[in-house]
């Protein structure tokens, strides 16, 4: 029975590939292809849903083993990563719940997205997201969960920027993605530290190991995962990304930020309950962050004037409460809260556009007397406690400044020293300039001075040494030795010829004979 778990994320993934490749090849296109796309997406998620429910049923009757190992994914020296899934308990419940919610939203999207320009793109990303989310909640090792975690983040980025031709959604998408990367960094660090200290990245083994680890170690590992959870579940100080993320199509907001992805952080904390229980300091941190976020969300939520923004603060507020429950050790309650909140919020956000019809003639109740009079609180609420400007001032701008400085160093110092010719090509921005450059190259055809020239320090060195060697080669090796040997040979030959001619003259011959006789006589 357990092997079904591997198929659950696989079906939406295949659907995503089917839609993506079909669209790429031009087979699935336009309104005519909508039914094929939607059938693929719904069929896949339906299958996953059925399998997840089957698995849940089997687990409730106690038929499942705890884990199912598909095989070795990576093996390097002592590092061995198994492709392992968890097939019982909390993970199974969440898998089934998320599968159902994903099915509902996919079905809802078919009508909602009808005749949208990005219909196929939307369903491609939604299917990809479904696969990622189901992998996230069913994977038994940190790496599997992280893969789902990352793909979910990427899908979220792609859907916030759904209307990529407009400025605001793309800007928001980037901002959300970058904020999420902070959590990813925490997650990766957590994986690394788990492997380093506990020697395993299997969730269940890590949980089992937790009591044997020293307090500081557990605290650090738990902190890393807590940061990842805070970011993913929009807790302070990372909350502002959630309001920006509401930019995407409504069904996607419902499934990403209403019900499924936003709970990934809480899910991680609840799954790692034994680990967190060993780290009281982090438990306190969870409680504080949850409580502060809940208060913050409540205050800011009061001044929101559009449905989606109000929901976004309501969501982060509720999640704050769940974190508070976790921090206080009420794990059972937190788990129930998670499930209930996912279902309710999914419905709420899906119906958000219709809500406008219902509130007409049904004005919102004014706030209490105390709050009504505190002006500073109002300003802070309207400004969302200046979290975004503070982040800009403290993080974005200094990093941007460093980036600019480094870019300056790179292009004016390093590139010049290394002789990187990219400076020239970078300056081409129009076709006209390109043509001019090509013409210039064509004219410069026989410019011998350009040849054997080097750029940068190493290039100049090569040029100079090359010039010296070239001179040496010309003057000494080829001229002096090569050519002069030939000349010398010729001269010696001429001298020998002259000598020969002289010798053959009678008077010298007579002299020669005379000398020989003289020598013979003296002997």
């Amino acid at each position, binding site marked *: 029975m357990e092997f079904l778990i591997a198929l659950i994320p696989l079906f939406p993934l295949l659907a995503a590939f089917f839609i993506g490749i079909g669209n790429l090849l031009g087979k699935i296109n336009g309104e005519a292809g909508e039914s094929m796309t939607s059938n693929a997406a719904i069929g896949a998620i339906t299958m996953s849903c059925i399998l997840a429910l089957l698995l849940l049923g089997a687990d409730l009757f106690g038929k499942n083993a705890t884990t199912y190992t598909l095989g070795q994914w990576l093996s390097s020296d002592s590092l061995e990563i198994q492709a392992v899934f968890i097939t019982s308990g909390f993970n199974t419940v969440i898998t089934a719940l998320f599968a159902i919610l994903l099915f509902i939203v996919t079905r809802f999207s078919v009508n909602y997205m009808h005749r949208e320009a990005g219909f196929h793109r939307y369903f491609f990303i939604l299917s990809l997201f479904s696969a990622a989310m189901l992998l996230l909640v069913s994977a038994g090792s940190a790496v599997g969960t992280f893969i789902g975690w990352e793909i979910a983040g990427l899908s979220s980025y792609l859907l916030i920027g759904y209307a990529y031709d407009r400025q605001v959604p793309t800007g928001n998408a980037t901002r959300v993605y970058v904020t999420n990367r902070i959590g990813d960094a925490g997650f990766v660090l957590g994986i690394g530290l788990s492997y380093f200290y506990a020697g395993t990245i299997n969730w269940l083994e890590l949980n089992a190991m937790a009591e044997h680890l020293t307090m500081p170690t557990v605290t650090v590992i738990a902190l890393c995962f807590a940061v990842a959870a805070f970011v993913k579940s929009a807790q302070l100080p990372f909350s502002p990304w959630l309001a920006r993320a509401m930019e995407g199509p409504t069904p996607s907001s419902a499934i990403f930020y209403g019900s499924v992805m936003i709970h990934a952080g809480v899910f991680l904390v609840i799954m790692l309950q034994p680990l967190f229980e060993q780290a009281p300091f982090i438990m306190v941190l969870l409680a504080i962050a949850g409580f502060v976020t809940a208060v913050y969300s409540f205050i800011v939520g009061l001044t929101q004037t559009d449905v989606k923004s109000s929901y976004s603060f309501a969501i982060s507020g509720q999640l704050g409460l769940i974190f508070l429950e976790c921090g206080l050790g009420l794990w059972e309650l937190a788990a129930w809260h998670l499930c209930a909140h996912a279902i309710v919020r999914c419905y709420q956000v899906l119906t958000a556009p219709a809500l406008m019809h219902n509130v007409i003639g049904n004005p919102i109740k004014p706030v209490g007397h105390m709050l009504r009079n505190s002006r500073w609180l109002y300003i802070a609420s309207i400004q969302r406690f200046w979290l975004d400007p503070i982040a800009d001032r403290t993080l974005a701008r200094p990093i941007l400044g460093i980036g600019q400085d480094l870019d300056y160093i790179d292009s004016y110092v390093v590139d010049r020293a290394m002789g990187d010719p990219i400076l020239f090509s970078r300056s081409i921005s129009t076709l006209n300039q390109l043509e001019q450059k*090509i013409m210039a*190259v*064509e004219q410069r*055809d*026989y*410019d*011998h001075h350009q*040849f*054997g020239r080097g750029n940068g320090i*190493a290039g100049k060195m*090569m040029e100079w*040494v*090359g*010039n010296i*060697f*070239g001179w040496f*080669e010309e003057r000494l*090796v*080829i001229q002096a*030795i*090569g*050519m002069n*040997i*030939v000349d010398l*040979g010729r001269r010696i030959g001429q001298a020998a010829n002259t000598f020969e001619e002289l010798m053959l003259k009678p008077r010298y011959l007579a002299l020669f004979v005379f000398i020989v006789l003289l020598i013979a006589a003296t002997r």
Partner: protein
Amino acid sequence: MGILSILLFTPAVGICALALISRHKTSQLRSVANVFATIAFFLSCWLIVIYNQEDGALQLAEQFLLNPKLGTSFALGIDGLSLPMVVMATLLTSVALLASLSITASVKSYYISILMLELGMLGVFMAQDWSLYYIFWELTLAPLFLLIGRWGGVRRHMASLNFVLYTMGGSIFMLISLLAISQYMPEHGGTLMSSMSVAAQSMPKNEQILVMIGFLIGFGVKMPIFPLHGWLPLAHVEAPSPISILMSGILLKMGAYGLIRAVVMLPEATQALQVFLVVLALIGMIYGGLLAWRQTDLKAMVAYSSVSHMGVVLLGIATLDEAGMTGAVMQMVAHGLVAGAMFLLVGLLYERTHTRNIMDYSSLVQVMPRFALFMTITFLAAMSLPGSVGFIAELHTYVGGFQQWGNLMVFLGVSIIISSAYAMRTIGMLFTGPVKSHMREIEDLRIPELLASSVLVLGIVLFGLWPSPLIDLSASTMNLMNDIISQRIK
């Protein structure tokens, strides 16, 4: 009559056959020459089959006393050092003949000269008697003099004269050294390599060093070692391209081959000269590389890159250890393939465009994609990219050199960087850039040319990815030589 004699006399029979054919029957002459070259190639392949890789000593030896009074004999034999060279010689001769289709003037004497050259080269690599070695060594000069002087480029007379003078000058030193050793031979001792190396041990050390210097000059001219390379750029540039293939592919290896034999004969003298050799090798590598970088003439560039690559061979020999020596032999094979392929392709390009100036070329990949593929692989092998046989050779040399001199090997790295500078620049200038009008209608490689170049390029890639057969072929001989050297040095 053993297989080595049959192999040796195949080109000689070919010469006789060519002599009988009328000089007007061009196609007949070509096919006969090709047939004999191919027979020689298959015979050398058969040698690989019957050669016992486990045994590093001389194999398939044949001996026949030539001159009882002096004791000189016609002794042939192969070991793991000469076998790769024999195969390379026959292979590259076949390739050169395939590339000779553009030669149309006095075809008969051309082919006779090439087969005579093959005879000389095979003799050099198979001879086990120094006097026989010397005879074959000198035998290669005559056909080369004719080949460069008659079918060469504009400055062919100068080039051929220069080449012969240099080599003759060098071989005189070699002869003097051989004579010096023979002083220590017993009466009627002959000139067998094995008995001469025994005799060399009884020489006083200072004489050994002098003899070694003599060998160094004699073989160094051919190899070439740095200051003695003056003949090479001129001869390579002016020679017709099939001859350039043979010269860089095989004739340079004759020098390196002889030097290795001399080093095994006189290890103590080599050890005394070791530092000198290393310095010459490193200078030669960088010198050749930088000059190659400065050449606008494609053929001159390849010629200077030969100087640079043969520096690696000298470096490998100078390490006097097994890894370095293996590297030297590997580099001899690698350079034979790479330089052969480069001269072949450059020659084919020159036939089509009649210019060798790099700056005249542009965007050739659009008109000659097959040529571009082969040329690019060859140039990448010339910068010893991993996956090419050059990498295997330089890695061995590097390892051997590093064990001996450590950080000095940084210069080997510099020379590799320089070689990548000119190789990448040449690839860029030949194949990319704007399309030039006069480079639009160039024919891509034809079938015989494709055959010739693909054999070489396949060899480069195949031995780069799977070098163990090549290493195994000479491993036991290298082992044996290393044992001899290390015994004598200590």
